[in-house]
């Protein structure tokens, strides 16, 4: 039997199909605007960091004028003709500058790690502490503070090392446990394993803390985060780790965009999603562990900064990673400035400031972005 096609059937979408295949225009690629980091965006970020850093050095209990700050830095750098009082030089160079530098390093690292985790786990609530860094570092620091705390000289050197080791151990445990029987690690199983490992480490930490009531205050101060003990030695201690980790995450920015279509599709066009995720987790963990080891657990930065950047600059990690680095650095310097001036001479825990300063700002940005959309 044969079927005759009814009238008009062949007319529907085919003309478009054929029109689409006409000869391409030779300069068509010039009209494409793929998402790239723009120079002006970097410029704004760099100005923000510079402004925050200058404010961080300028403001404090010992009054300095902007000119005094510049001459103190110039004198220390040996620039001819610059004369500064020894006190101003010491305040700027030994107290405020290392603190600003450490704040910038820690803020940049936490923000960029948060951004990378959000991309690698498709989870907007992911922060650098997702896979157990915080609980591991907390346990490490608590052990160091409680058991080596008596000799206060050794505390300064043992706490960062213990916190770093604890953080790396916790994430390694998460990674070892977070694989299914087939050997594959899905983002979901990893995150759930992280929850379990964090609960376990936190339980031990709480137990130790509760058994040693005398050191409760000092442990609690550490957990809430502070830059009060900042010095050039700490800056030198963590800077290489943070530079390496941030550099590795920056190199992965395009791959993080590729992961956003899911592991299977990423694999189909040649991006090994599991390897990218492993690289991101390793880099973010080492960097975050280094940051946390000198600053304690500063919350909220790793969520708020990348999301603010995302709302303002779009969803591509080509922009989110580098801009989170800059704005995270500036934001934490600003937060630390507030932490040490609001109740001066007492200091607020830095984690309290980041949350109370960041949350309202974030809500404003969120509302604005919704209105624009």
């Amino acid at each position, binding site marked *: 039997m044969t079927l005759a096609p009814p009238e008009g059937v062949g007319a*529907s979408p085919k003309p478009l199909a054929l029109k689409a295949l006409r000869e391409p225009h030779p300069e068509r690629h010039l009209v494409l605007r793929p998402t790239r980091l723009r120079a002006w965006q970097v410029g704004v970020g760099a100005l923000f960091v510079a402004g925050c850093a200058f404010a961080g050095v300028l403001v404090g209990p010992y009054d300095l004028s902007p000119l005094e700050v510049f001459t103190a830095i110039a004198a220390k750098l040996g620039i001819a003709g610059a004369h500064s009082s020894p006190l101003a030089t010491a305040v700027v160079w030994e107290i405020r500058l290392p603190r600003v530098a450490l704040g910038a390093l820690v803020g940049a690292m936490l923000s960029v790690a948060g951004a990378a985790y959000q991309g690698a786990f498709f989870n907007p609530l992911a922060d650098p502490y997702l896979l157990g860094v915080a609980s591991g570092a907390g346990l490490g620091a608590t052990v160091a503070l409680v058991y080596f705390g008596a000799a206060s000289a050794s505390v300064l050197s043992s706490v960062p090392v213990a916190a770093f080791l604890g953080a790396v151990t916790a994430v390694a445990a998460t990674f070892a446990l977070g694989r299914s029987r087939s050997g594959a690690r899905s983002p979901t199983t990893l995150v759930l394993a992280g929850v379990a490992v964090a609960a376990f480490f936190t339980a031990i930490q709480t137990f130790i803390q509760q058994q040693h009531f005398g050191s409760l205050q000092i442990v609690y101060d550490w957990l809430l985060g502070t830059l009060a003990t900042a010095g050039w030695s700490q800056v030198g201690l963590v800077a290489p780790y943070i530079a390496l980790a941030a550099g590795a995450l920056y190199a992965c920015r395009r791959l993080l965009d590729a992961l956003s*279509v899911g592991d299977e*599709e990423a694999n189909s066009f040649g991006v090994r999603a599991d390897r990218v995720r492993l690289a991101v987790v390793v880099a973010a963990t080492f960097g975050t562990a280094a940051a946390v080891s000198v600053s304690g657990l500063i919350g909220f930065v790793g969520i708020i900064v990348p999301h603010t950047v995302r709302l303002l600059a779009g969803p591509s990690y080509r922009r989110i990673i580098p801009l989170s680095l800059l704005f995270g650095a500036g934001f934490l310097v600003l937060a630390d400035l507030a932490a040490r001036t609001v109740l001066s001479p007492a200091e607020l825990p830095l984690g309290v400031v980041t949350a109370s300063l960041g949350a309202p700002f974030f809500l404003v940005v969120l509302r604005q972005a919704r209105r624009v959309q």
Partner: protein
Amino acid sequence: MMLEAFDIKVSLGGKPVLTGVSLTVGAGGWLGVVGPNGAGKSTLLRALLGLVPYQGNVRVCGREYGQGEQRSRARALAYVPQRPVLPAAMNVVDYVLLGRSAHHSYLGPETARDLEVTAEVLERLELLPLASRPLSQLSGGEAQRAVLARALAQEAPVLVMDEPTTSLDLGYGQLVLELADELRKQKGLAVVCAIHDLTLAAQFSDQLMLLSTGRAVSFGPPGQVLTEANVRRYFGADVEILIGECGLVVSPARRRRPKEALGTCPLAQGT
């Protein structure tokens, strides 16, 4: 042969899903993969693409691709998934550029050539005016063309499509298949396309493979594979195979309808 696969076996969770499937597709050939739900159509395609662990050999243009060689494989086989993940805020040009991932350096930026290929593909699929639009603002048909564009940007000689018409209405479904068909003819692509609709499968494919419970039970030209006996046996469906002007039509047929029921049907009374 452009694409050759020998004795592909896949087990998922200890359960055999494919038990030795072989196929060949020449340049400019279109192999349609049909079969009832759960026959292993998607698994076969995913094995060809190296997305599931498999036993057997996959060769493209004579070169064998092993497990884990995703980057070089992506230059040989491109994939249009059944349910593509479309990141809502990503724009069309960034999305299509992802298809160039296997061509530029792993961490490095895209080259001018990547942009040029992307632009060419976008223009061919009439997506150039939509290039900076976020994926969430595309219609179903536009989105499916974007997915096809990403696959074509891979410049792979083999195009693997898994039910490319699932989420589209008939017109857009035909349009996507026509586009793939035109490109196949122009560029000599080998197409492997799993497809649910037997009539579309018959009209677009020059070879059909009928899968049932992980085996190829029939292989050949559409007229040879899509027989009323085969469809009844493997799909459990009663159909009539009609030869229309455009090719074969597989039409459902209610042969077991009781004669007396026709009398009460208002449509039947008019005729």
